[in-house]
């Protein structure tokens, strides 16, 4: 059983998805999906424990030996992210039980949960696999199901948002498959481990360079690196709140993982930073993305869009930290990956609770909610503080490592810019605080009160996690550091 954990991680939600269609009953299907994702979460806990105890796990699918068959490889990096993604998948589903009643017709609940579990499958599959083509396959599974999730939003604009994402996502996927295809052409292998061995022999060919170029641009589209982020704000704004919370906490994170895996484990950091001008590109795009999208966030009138822009800004921090090109910088990226998921999941679930009660995520509808929904709003503020990076929250831990990594490289001006940019977060978070606590309620609705416990509990679990991992960082910092050092040590997977 323990030996088969890597495949169980993917197969459980994959089998759960079609079963949702059989269950049908709106109430039961939610609980079934929750059960499936909880099992998935437990599997990932066991997997992380195994990796921490015994080191990298290699699993050959169907018993086919590695370069021919598909191989799953679980090391520090992906076991850590598997835990994150499956945990978010499960926690968000707890809140979904009541939340989607309000946003989706009952007949569509089973579709929602099917797409949700498929999306989870795709994301977990990307993390598990050690095969480049398999990455593409799972990327498409997760992408197609997220288009569906977004299109299920009850605002008609959800359809255009989903379509926009579909076009951009498909372009990204095409780029990725072109990149993988070219690499296969040059090396004759799809296994990442093999690719890493054979690519250096053909490094100076233009085909390999363009393969890498296609792949990286494709992935950057998926992870919404500025200026390839245009699909994201609408997609997050119009999707059902639960879908937004799930996607914001996981999907871009997994795309960042693909980028890290590709750069460090396949191409190799020296090659990526010497032959390719990746460092310069990522620094410029990272920092300009942080500013451009943080400033956009300040002017948003819809809170979902506001935090969607903020998500793109946070991606900028991760890419900037990645560009530093030191183990410390990579640690900062991995930490922020984890921490940002905690913040955004908490924030979007809190917003989901408002949508549940008020029916809108327009900023003006938040007026006076501080009195009517005190617990939800307190959670929103706590998430916001974490986003700003107040000490004792996870945001502070991320910021500390990012700044330390920048200073280690002697990049003083960037350090100042990064700290300055967190003030922009203060502005957009405080705009919400002022609406929530100072404006008088727009329309006085008697029933507006905190959401049922099934939503409040997951929100507070996440808020608690925001503080817990801001105080006890042994898990996050420990694993990120080991993963970063392993990646830099050239220890593949």
């Amino acid at each position, binding site marked *: 059983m323990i030996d088969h954990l890597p495949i169980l991680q993917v197969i459980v939600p994959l089998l759960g998805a079609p079963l949702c269609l059989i269950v049908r009953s709106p109430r039961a299907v939610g609980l079934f999906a929750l059960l499936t994702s909880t099992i998935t979460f437990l599997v990932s806990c066991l997997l992380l424990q195994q990796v921490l105890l015994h080191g990298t796990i290699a699993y050959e699918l169907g018993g086919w030996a590695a370069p021919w068959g598909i191989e799953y490889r679980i090391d520090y990096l992906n076991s850590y992210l598997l835990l994150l993604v499956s945990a978010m998948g499960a926690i968000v589903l707890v809140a979904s039980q009541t939340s989607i009643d309000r946003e989706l017709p009952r007949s569509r609940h089973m579709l929602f949960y099917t797409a949700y579990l498929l999306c989870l499958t795709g994301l977990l599959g990307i993390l598990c696999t050690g095969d480049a083509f398999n990455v593409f396959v799972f990327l498409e599974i997760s992408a197609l199901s997220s288009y569906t999730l977004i299109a299920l939003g009850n605002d008609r604009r959800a359809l255009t948002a989903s379509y926009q994402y579909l076009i951009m996502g498909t372009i990204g996927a095409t780029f990725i498959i072109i990149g993988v295809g070219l690499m296969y052409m040059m090396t004759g292998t799809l296994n990442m481990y093999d690719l890493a061995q054979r690519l250096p022999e053909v490094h100076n060919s233009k085909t390999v360079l363009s393969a890498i170029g296609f792949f990286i641009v494709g992935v950057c589209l998926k992870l919404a690196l500025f200026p390839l982020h245009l699909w994201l704000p609408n997609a997050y704004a119009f999707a059902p709140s639960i879908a937004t919370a799930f996607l914001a906490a996981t999907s871009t994170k997994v795309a960042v993982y693909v980028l890290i895996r590709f750069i460090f484990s396949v191409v190799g950091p020296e090659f990526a930073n010497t032959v390719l001008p990746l460092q310069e590109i990522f620094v410029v795009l990272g920092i300009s993305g942080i500013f451009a999208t943080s400033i956009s966030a300040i002017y948003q009138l819809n809170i979902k869009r506001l935090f969607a822009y903020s998500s793109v800004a946070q991606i900028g921090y991760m890419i900037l930290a990645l560009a530093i090109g030191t183990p410390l910088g990579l640690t900062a990226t991995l930490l922020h990956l984890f921490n940002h998921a905690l913040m955004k999941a908490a924030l979007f679930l809190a917003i989901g609770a408002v949508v549940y009660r008020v029916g809108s995520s327009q900023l003006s509808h938040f007026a006076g909610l501080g009195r009517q929904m005190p617990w939800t709003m307190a959670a929103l503020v706590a998430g916001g503080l974490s986003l700003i990076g*107040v000490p004792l929250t996870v945001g502070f831990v991320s910021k500390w490592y990012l700044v330390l990594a920048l200073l280690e490289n002697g990049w003083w001006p960037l350090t100042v810019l990064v700290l300055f940019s967190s003030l922009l977060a203060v502005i957009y978070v*405080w705009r919400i605080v002022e609406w929530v606590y100072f404006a008088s309620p727009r329309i006085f609705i008697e029933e507006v009160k905190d959401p049922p416990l099934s939503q409040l509990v997951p929100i507070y679990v996440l808020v608690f996690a925001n503080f817990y991992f801001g105080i006890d960082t042994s898990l996050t910092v420990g694993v990120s550091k080991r993963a970063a050092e392993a990646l830099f040590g050239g220890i593949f997977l």
Partner: protein
Amino acid sequence: MTAETLLLLTILVPLGAVIGIVALGHSPNLREAVSLTASLVLIYLTVSLYKITGAGAAVSWEGLHILPGLVLFFSIEPLGMLFSLIGSFLWLITTIYSIGYMRGHQEKNQTRFYICFAIAISSVMGISYAGNLFTLFIFYEILTLSTYPLVTHAGTEKAKLGGRVYLGILLTTSILFLLLAIIGTWYIAGTVDFHPGGIFDQSHTLAAAVLLPLYVFGIGKAAIMPFHRWLPAAMVAPTPVSALLHAVAVVKAGVFSVLKICTYIFGFDMLNRLPTTNFLLYLAGASVIIASLVAMKQDNLKARLAYSTVSQLSYITVGALLANSAGALGGAMHIGMHAFGKITLFFCAGAIMVATHKTEISDMRGLGRRMPVTMTAFFIGSLSIIGLPPCGGTWSKWYLMIGTIEADKLILMVVLMVSSLLNIAYLLPIPIKGFLYPDPDDKKGLRQVKEAPLPSLVALSLTSVGCIVLFIYPQPLYELGTYFLEAAGVHGR
């Protein structure tokens, strides 16, 4: 109880009071009883710690390894002892005062008021006993955030704008400069612990020269110009908040941090070598004069007092930057002396507001006949701020003057003297006109005495008596000051 337990309790008791205040929020009398009890317990705790440390025992507590190498670390040294004693003692008096004020003024949301107050006091204790910069920073930020709801207590548009300035400046400076300075220190010196004689060595001179201004500007709570605007903005808060927090706790947390960083992080030898010290010293001097001049033009009593505070805070910054024993001693003593003087003045301003609803100085002629106790207290408080016998302010100013002579900075001595004259010009006319001019509202000459509610009157009498006692019996402050010099590795006088 061990000394470590006592230390932790000083931080936990005010936090524990929060639970009591929430639970008893429905019954104002019981709720205030919780605050009063907590403050009495806190005084007991700090005095016990004073006795223990006075006997020569070192008390410290270490726990919560937040980041590798960065721990939550408390360690009591004399300056912190002094600050916590003043903080706990004045919390009791302010609570007494608040009971009269908040009820007399019929303020809303009193439960929230007492909650935030208790959290603020808890963070003041944390700042006092912080054993490293990291711990100091955590509590510094908590203090900022917990006082924000107090500043915006009224919930009006004006309060909201005041809150923006307050939070804007304090967070901007702390994130942009202070955090950068702390991470920079960690990066350069490899430690952020407070250490007698400083933690930098000769080779760090250049970096330290950059870090010093970052610290001085980063500690926005010390209100050195041009980062002082938040203090007048904070005057929209209810008067007890202005009294304890914006004349004592928050601002003193600022200058306390400056003094502590100058002695335990830089050390006087290093300060004397740095090229940036002089610049900051003269900037602080300019702050003293300019703020006094601005204060003269204010007709609103609280605004005048706020600018007076800005000016007086720079006294302490000057004392710290003079980098000699007399300057530091004067600075340390001034923390206590100014606290008693200024809190008295604010208490009087609040008493006048509650009893007569007057806020403008030009309306206060003849007020001494109606409020003789208040005006007498105001007179005594003014004398202490000016630095005239028979009030405590005399001594701290004395040592600051000696400090300027020792450092051979005669210009600064002139600055201090001119400032005293300006203090006379903007403070004394208020009680003089109060007593000597006829009351325009009292045409019949009834001379009816109508003071503020009794608790407020008791509180302001206590603090004004305190000003005089500190003239006759300044030994506790002086002793703690000299112990502080010894602990900081400076030769005591």
